[in-house]
């Protein structure tokens, strides 16, 4: 069995205004994700998908329970530890791309290297070129994001997430803002990365995504109600207890 990348036990996240009538965004979530897995987190709107990803990425720190990422206990890490974890081991892809409009495509991709240690800073330019070639946009490296199509922008965002060669790639509705065809291009890119060994977690509404990933975790009102793992060939999985 592959090593454990994410280990979650009894994770509960209550946003302000929740509790009582409204259920918490996450309640008592247990989850183990191993290296190389491709996980689709599905569920209705408001079921807690984004909240889960934010907790795993260390962007949200107001939860209870136990969360280990890359063997590190997020509850015990300070800001410095979590920032370094993000910088070295995690990649984010957002629904709204979140490229910085004043920087060129290449600079956007280089961004993580500016906040890392000297070795990442040194390797940054080479890695940025490799990442942009990987997503097929090296020829647009000098453009500002405003001149790219939506699909191209999301591919640049993926390249940015790849710069630090992440062990865990967290994508929140990466195709949500794209038309189906363009979405497919981005999806293929992500699937390729997963096949090459990158651990992938995608929060999504789209069935076609959950169908092609090896594992589906369904949330409802902040609880895991289904956790299905399929064979890579696509045979039926097993229901969660």
């Amino acid at each position, binding site marked *: 069995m592959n090593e454990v990348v994410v280990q979650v036990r009894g994770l509960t996240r209550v946003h302000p205004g929740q509790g009582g009538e409204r259920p918490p965004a996450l309640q008592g979530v247990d989850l183990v994700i191993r290296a190389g897995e491709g996980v689709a987190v599905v569920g209705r709107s408001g079921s807690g998908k984004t909240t889960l990803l934010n907790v795993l990425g260390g*962007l949200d720190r107001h939860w209870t329970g136990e969360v280990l990422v890359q063997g590190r206990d997020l509850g015990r890490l300070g800001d410095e530890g979590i920032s*370094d974890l993000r910088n070295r081991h995690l990649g984010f892809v957002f629904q709204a791309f979140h490229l910085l409009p004043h920087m060129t495509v290449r600079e956007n991709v280089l961004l993580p290297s500016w906040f890392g240690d000297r070795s990442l*800073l040194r390797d940054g330019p080479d890695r940025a070129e490799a990442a942009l070639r990987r997503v097929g946009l090296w020829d647009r490296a000098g453009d500002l994001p405003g001149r790219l199509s939506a699909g191209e922008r999301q591919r640049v965002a993926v390249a940015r997430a790849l710069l630090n060669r992440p062990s865990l790639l967290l994508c929140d509705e990466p195709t949500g803002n794209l038309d189906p065809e363009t979405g497919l291009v981005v999806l293929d890119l992500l699937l390729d990365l997963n096949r090459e060994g990158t651990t992938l977690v995608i929060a999504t509404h789209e069935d076609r995504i959950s169908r092609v990933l090896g594992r589906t975790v369904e949330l409802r009102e902040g609880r895991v109600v289904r956790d299905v793992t399929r064979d890579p060939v696509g045979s039926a999985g097993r229901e969660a207890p």
Partner: protein
Amino acid sequence: MTLATRMGIVGRHLARSRTHLAFAAVGLVVGSASLVFFLALTGGIRERVLNRLYPVNQVELQREMVRVFGLGLEVPSRLDEAVLSALRGLPGVQGVWPKQKSRFQAILWGGREVFGRDFRVESFFDGIDPVLVRDEIRHAEQEAYGPEVLSGRCETDQDCGLGAACRAGTCGRRTFWDRFRDPGGDLLCRDDGGCPPGEACIDGRCGIPCGDQGCGEGGVCDRGRCRKACGSDEDCLPGETCSSGAGGRACRRLECRLENVQQVFSSDPEVIRGWVVSSNPSAGESPRRCPLGTWCATGSVRSVEGTCEAPIPVILSPSLLEIYNRVVASAMGMQPVSGLEILLGVPFSMVFGESFFIEDAPVDRRVLRRCVVVGFSNKALDFGFTVPLGVVVRANAMMRGREGAAEATSVILETARNEDLAAAVEDAKVLGLVPAPRSEEARKASQVLRILSWVFGLVSGVMLVISSIHITHTFLMLLTERRLEIAVYRAVGARLSDIRAMVFLEAGLLGVFGGGAGTGLAWLLAQGVNRLPGMGGLPGLAGVSRLFDFSPGVLLAGVACAEVFALVGAWLPAARAARMDPAAVLS
């Protein structure tokens, strides 16, 4: 994150928000400009104007005057050694320097070289401790003649030319300061009563008698009187020679005589040097004149016997020049004088005991003395001139006896700390002493100046506080604009400390630019003010070329204040930026 990448990102932020930031910096520029301008102005006035009249930690005290029916009468207390030592004992006092005025009638003439013809006026002078005017004398001489040391090998003074002296084989200028510090000169006497306090009449000359312990370090007891020990003539004052005697080698003044009484009033520089009287005439050495730079000063205008002496060094008040140019020159059809410098080195003569106003002293009590101008100071007598204290004491003793030399006319009091001065002045009142009018004015002026600098400092401070608030406001706005940016930085691994540091760095750069620009602006403004017509002619400002004092401290204060207020202004925004929740912005 390295400093270079941090600077790179901050540089982008600055460039992108330059308009907002420029407006935010206006307050800093204006605030620091006004701070620097007024600091430089009040500092300059204090340093260049007031401190010349009276340093802030000095005060001139004189005996209290009691007004009776409009007449000023001095309270009958004496400003003698007892009072002086009482003053020295006051808490906080670090210096007590008596001043003494001449107490006899005298006239002077000279100045043909500068004024076109000789002056002939009643002469008033006082004596001051040389230390009090050292810097001014050195400054004036350096302005006029450049560096003090001349080069060139030599054996005697003659090898070095006029005004220079041979010291240890090299030519050096015998500086005006050297002359003023230690003018030398012997005082002839008949008994102890004709000598200043502390001196006795020994072999017809006033001198310090040897004490029980001899004459102390560097002194030699020679037939009952103390003399300075020496190795060669170079160790002695002008007009002295180093020769062996009872107690060892010591400086002795050369005796001289003139060929006849008419030569006493001669203006021939060669003739007035007379002839040195040989100590052992049998040796048959060739006759020689008093050394270069000295002349043969006789005991009275009726006597041909005297000693080789350097001219009495004299300093003038700058205001004397103004009086001359404005009043005297036009009234008497004489040439106006453009600057003080040309008076340096000008010789003149005095006769003690003669007067245009009162009866002359008997002819055999009249004495001729030669003088030379060596410097300028606001501490010099406004209507007259000022010489080293020792010269006045000796002259008063010669003309008025010991009693006339025993009492100071005023005293300059210096405290170690400025704050102690007021208390010392109060204490001195008990001794019957009050500040001299000029000193009192200076004190009031410096008080006004202090209040003004506080007011201007406060105004500048208010401007800086407002600019600081403006910076807070601008940065809060900019951070709202940059919310997404900061959230993305956080998502790719920026630490909270990185975010905070970038905000402070940006504000810090703004502070440096704003403070630098403000300081530069103040400097430009000062240049403009300096050029205003009439700046040079303000009363009391003669010789003041720059009214502003841009010391490194003032410049630094301008930039540092802008910097501090910029950083303070960035405090809240930095905290706000760190508190922002990236998850809320990104999802």
